[in-house]
């Protein structure tokens, strides 16, 4: 039976959100084409990660377990995965469009001289069962549908947060196949020497997953320090409305709204922002919106998932404190 594969990413023994999303997407395609859904897991000591996939609609898991695969190594991961693909010949392989997922997919496509459609937002099938890979191009102004007519497997990376994961539960027992990868370290010309975390507050607003934004209610540039502290605690950055920019409380490149940048972070905390449409247009698609304002009639509360009526000068430090304490408590465990 033909196979569709999903290449999964995991961290600290848990699968990433995007991995569950491509499992869901893969199951859908597999059902339509009557194919087997197989998951590929790479890493070191990953048997437990494989187990958490059981009963989630995956027919078989391939575990490529080796100490050298403990962290992402571009060349070793490519060697291991390309070899497995060549041996078992899946029809389709899906990856999450994360930094590492995209890199690995691109390398495998190049090594096997096959096509790849990156950053897909939707996958569909045509009458012949070819994968219709839809992605945004031209800075989001065009939606392109792309196929891989001949070369197999069809490779696609799927943009995170575009697929809704419904209940994946299935009674079927998943088969687990352990494959000791044969790796040739002598062929490596790239050395990963480590990773660092830069100060998240320095991230451009478009890149931040969490934004703590301030408006007129913040009152002064000095008070923005409170927002910066909160942003740091959340691993995010600071943004502002036009009025706060015009008052020079915050540099101009941090402006969110119609005359600034449009952002879609996972979490947006609006502090002292009334919610004028000029600002709202630039942040309304954020994943989760928190509003903090002294005026309980402020329009921003209508848009917020959670609102706090109160003085941000007291509430924001309390939030920073709370997050810090919980982190500390967890680290002690």
């Amino acid at each position, binding site marked *: 039976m033909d196979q569709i594969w999903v290449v999964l990413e995991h961290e600290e023994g848990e699968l990433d959100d995007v991995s569950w999303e491509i499992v869901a997407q893969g199951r859908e395609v597999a059902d339509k084409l009557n194919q087997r859904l197989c998951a590929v897991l790479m890493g070191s000591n990953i048997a437990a990660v494989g187990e958490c996939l059981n009963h989630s609609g995956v027919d078989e898991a391939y575990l490529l377990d080796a100490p050298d695969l403990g962290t992402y190594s*571009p060349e070793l991961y490519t060697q291991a995965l390309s070899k497995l693909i060549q041996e078992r010949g899946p029809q389709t392989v899906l990856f999450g469009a994360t*930094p590492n997922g*995209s890199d690995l997919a*691109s*390398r495998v*496509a*190049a090594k096997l*001289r*096959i*096509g*790849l*459609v*990156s950053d897909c937002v939707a996958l569909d099938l045509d009458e012949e069962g070819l994968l219709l890979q839809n992605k945004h*191009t*031209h800075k989001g*102004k*065009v*939606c*392109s*549908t*792309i196929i891989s007519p*001949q070369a197999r497997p069809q490779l696609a990376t799927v943009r995170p947060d575009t697929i809704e994961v419904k209940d994946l539960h299935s009674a079927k027992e998943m088969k687990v196949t352990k494959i000791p990868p044969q790796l040739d370290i002598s062929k490596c*010309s*790239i*050395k*990963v*020497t*480590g*990773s*660092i*975390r*830069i100060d998240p507050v320095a*991230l451009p607003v478009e*890149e931040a997953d969490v934004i703590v934004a301030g408006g007129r209610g913040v009152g002064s540039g000095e008070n923005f320090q409170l927002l910066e502290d909160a942003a740091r605690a959340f*691993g995010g950055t600071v943004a502002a409305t036009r009025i706060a920019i015009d008052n020079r409380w915050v540099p101009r490149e941090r402006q969110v709204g119609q005359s600034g940048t449009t952002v879609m972070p*996972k*979490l947006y905390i609006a502090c002292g922002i009334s*919610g004028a*449409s000029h600002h*709202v247009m630039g942040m309304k698609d954020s*994943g*989760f919106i*928190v*509003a903090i304002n002294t005026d*309980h009639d402020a329009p921003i509360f*209508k*848009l*917020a*998932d*959670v*609102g*706090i009526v109160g003085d941000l000068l*007291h*509430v924001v430090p*309390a*939030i920073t404190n*709370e*997050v810090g304490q*919980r*982190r500390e408590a967890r680290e002690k465990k």
Partner: protein
Amino acid sequence: MNIVVCVKQVVDTEHLTKIAGGNTIDAPDLPRVVNTCDLVAVEEATQLKEKGIADEVIAVSMGPPSAEDALYRCLAMGADRALLLCDPAFEGSDSHATAVVLAKAISALDYGLILCGQKAFDTEAGQVGYYIAEMLAIPIISGVVKMDVRSDEKVRLHRKLKGAYRELLEASLPALLGVGPVLNEPRYVSLRAISRAKRKEIKHYNMKGLGLSSGDVGQRGAKTKVTSLSRPRPKKIFVPDSSLSAMERLMQVESGGLEEKEGNIITGSPQEAASKLVQVLISRKALRI
């Protein structure tokens, strides 16, 4: 050490208002520009030359004759010479077929480093560099946000990971690097500099000149095919409910017609409110502790 920079001329999306239909953006009248990240690559190469690390900077582009304009800009920025790979047979190329042409042209050059933009903003594929590196059998790293070339043998890099994380890498040279937009700020070039650059000659190569055959390039060399293009879902236009009073309608228009969420208002002292909020954020997976 010589540096080869791959550049692409793209339609300026700012002016893209309609799609002709079918599987190409048929927009001969639209202004064309050099892909943003490619300018960053040219700037980086020029800076390395100014520091005395690079000897010669060679800009290479595959495209129609009009792509000369893109190459003149590269020359004006500081590239020493430019190659245009141009043949009607190249039309319909995808990332793979484009890489076949570029790799063939680059293989005839003496290079220590190849720089590309990490992706072009028209196709947003980011794949050409990977194929070129594989064809030339050299290491590739894409998503480079910081780089440090000290010698002819090694380059140290930062690659962008999720969020604020950066991976630190080392690669042996020659290598291909896909550079991100934050690496540097491309210099401004005046019209005068561009017209001066036009005195330089751009070397043209066609399919035969490169020693390729029609089976390698264009649609026949492609691994993927665009079947259709469409506009993304049009934004919903908000029409206020006519049964409402003028004042209410005005207020709706003012708010942009956004749907109201059933927001939960958290009450209590700042400490209590903060504690409740953090609990909600954790349970809704908006925050990870």
